[in-house]
């Protein structure tokens, strides 16, 4: 078994990109490819994991598929916050999205971009779209937590946390702490069944490759900046401010009635982190006339990296994006 594991060679980020801007912690990436559609797409990934899950390996790379369709793909990398970054706030993330959108608009001479959020990146994308609707042509939200008043274990735990106590003790919430929490919400499946499955399939090189690509990504967890964690738990999970139109950024109210652009929601039926109830009330609430939801019978990560999801959901999702990119 040791030999088999030793032979695994995990190389993520399969598509070529360049870092076009770097600001302290944040980076703006641009993927190389032939641009055949006018409207660029900006990925806004979650700040609690690394964005390369969208370009994990060639078989399941969402980025590769978009580039192949002629979409001009950009991505924000939120980096790895250190102690010095503990006072970053959600508003700093929104400001950087605005900086990136402005830069893309200027460079590509377009009025608006397609904003594609993933997980907590979707939450940021929704906030941004309500604050600057004129700059967002299409909004794609993937496994999005917007309604935080759900009954999944993670949400219940979050509602029983005291974020101020945690942050004043440890500064940032480290990746290791988050890893343990994310495993303990479903210990039997994620600690027992998953690794027993690995032992069952240890002779299958394909299984091993996919397993370890995922495990490398899962445990490559940045810390969450202290002040961001306080907002995430206190204002989103405890008070559910976003869906109630009570959240504010830099003194501006986040009003979901401003979401009038086309919206595509991608969610997973068996998602234990952001269940369907995290997004469906949002879809009902927004006034957009062009809104669509696509789901898959998978979990939170399976939606992005499973082959069945790529065979069906992603084909349809990319077609939706392409149709609205000129």
């Amino acid at each position: 078994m040791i030999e088999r594991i030793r032979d695994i060679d995990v190389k993520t980020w399969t598509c070529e990109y360049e870092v076009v801007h770097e600001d302290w912690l944040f980076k703006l990436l641009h993927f190389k490819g032939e641009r055949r559609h006018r409207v660029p797409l900006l990925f806004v990934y979650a700040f609690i994991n690394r964005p390369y899950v969208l370009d994990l390996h060639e078989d399941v790379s969402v980025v590769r598929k978009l580039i192949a369709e002629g979409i001009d793909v950009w991505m924000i990398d939120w980096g790895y916050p250190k102690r010095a970054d503990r006072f970053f706030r959600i508003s700093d993330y929104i400001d950087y999205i605005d900086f990136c959108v402005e830069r893309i608009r200027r460079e590509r001479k377009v009025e608006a971009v397609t904003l594609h959020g993933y997980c907590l990146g979707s939450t940021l994308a929704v906030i941004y779209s309500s604050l600057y609707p004129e700059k967002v042509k299409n909004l794609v939200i993937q496994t999005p937590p917007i309604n935080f008043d759900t009954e999944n274990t993670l949400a219940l735990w979050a509602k029983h946390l005291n974020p101020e106590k945690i942050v004043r003790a440890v500064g940032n919430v480290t990746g290791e702490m988050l890893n343990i929490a994310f495993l303990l919400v479903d210990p039997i499946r994620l600690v027992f069944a998953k690794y027993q499955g690995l032992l069952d399939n240890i002779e299958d090189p394909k299984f091993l490759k996919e397993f370890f690509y995922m495990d490398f990504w899962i445990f490559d967890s940045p810390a969450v900046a202290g002040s961001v964690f306080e907002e995430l738990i206190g204002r989103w999970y405890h008070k559910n401010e976003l869906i109630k139109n009570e959240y504010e950024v830099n003194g501006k109210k986040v009003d979901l009635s401003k979401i009038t652009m086309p919206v595509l929601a991608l969610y997973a039926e068996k998602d234990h982190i952001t269940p369907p109830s995290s997004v469906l009330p949002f879809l009902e609430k927004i006034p957009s006339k062009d809104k669509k939801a696509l789901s898959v019978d998978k979990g939170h990560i399976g939606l992005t990296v499973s082959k069945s999801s790529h065979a069906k959901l992603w084909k349809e999702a990319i077609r939706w994006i392409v149709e609205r990119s000129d």
Partner: protein
Amino acid sequence: MIEVYRKLPKESFELILRNIAVRDYMKRIWEQYNVLGKLEYVDHFDKMFEELFRFFIRPFEVIIFNERFIRSMFPMQDFLSARDLISAYADFVESLASHMKLTLQLLSQPIIKTPVDKFIEDWMDFARKFEVPARFPQDLPFALPADAKNYLIDCMKHWGDFVSDYEKYREMLRNSFRRSIENFCNFLSKSNVNSFDEFKNSLQDYLAKEFDALLKSEDYLKLQQRLFDALFDHIYCLRRFLELLLENNPASPFATVSQLDEAYKRIMDLRRKILELEKRIEALEVRLHDRKD
């Protein structure tokens, strides 16, 4: 093995090793069931529990070292008990010496310094060496900087709360594990499980069902909240206590985390102001440019 340890994420490495051990225990249990046709709670289940939950329990155990650390800094109990012992022994030696001195005086002519006097002198010299450290624990409350005493008291209080809840937490997990295994054993006594895979999958289902319910239960949520509150309060108070010792020591060459945080906060506020100014300048430049056009 070292190469694999270096290559894999540490979590993957640990979970693989633990699951190899778990599989080994499961196989032994399965063999037992296969021979007897029934199953009862056996020791191997306890070992499985330890392997599966060690990953989650270890971070708490690491925290326990904090308490050891404080003890090593202020070993009050050790000092006090040693001091009592030395004091009792000194009383004994003193009375023995008086007795010997009187005996010698009766039997011989008085001399300037008897061997007993010499012994007492030497002994008192030796005992004096303990005086400063022996008084230190008593003087400590007066020697601490302002506020540090409260952080130290709070730190110990939260530690007590944490230890008490941690025991309950472990028991809660263990009881759920035990309950699911008992249900699994009942299931086995009524069913015919023919393969190890089927055995393993059924066990997994019983465990998952029990833990899904436990981790959402009100009792668990309340206990976990208390545990975390006590833990993070303890960490904070301990850190502040240590920081105050450092900050009030004029010879300390170190800036504390709280002092650095204050600096980080100011830098971050300045950064926001600079970004805002940059935006305004850019907007002005655009307006100026438009006017020229």
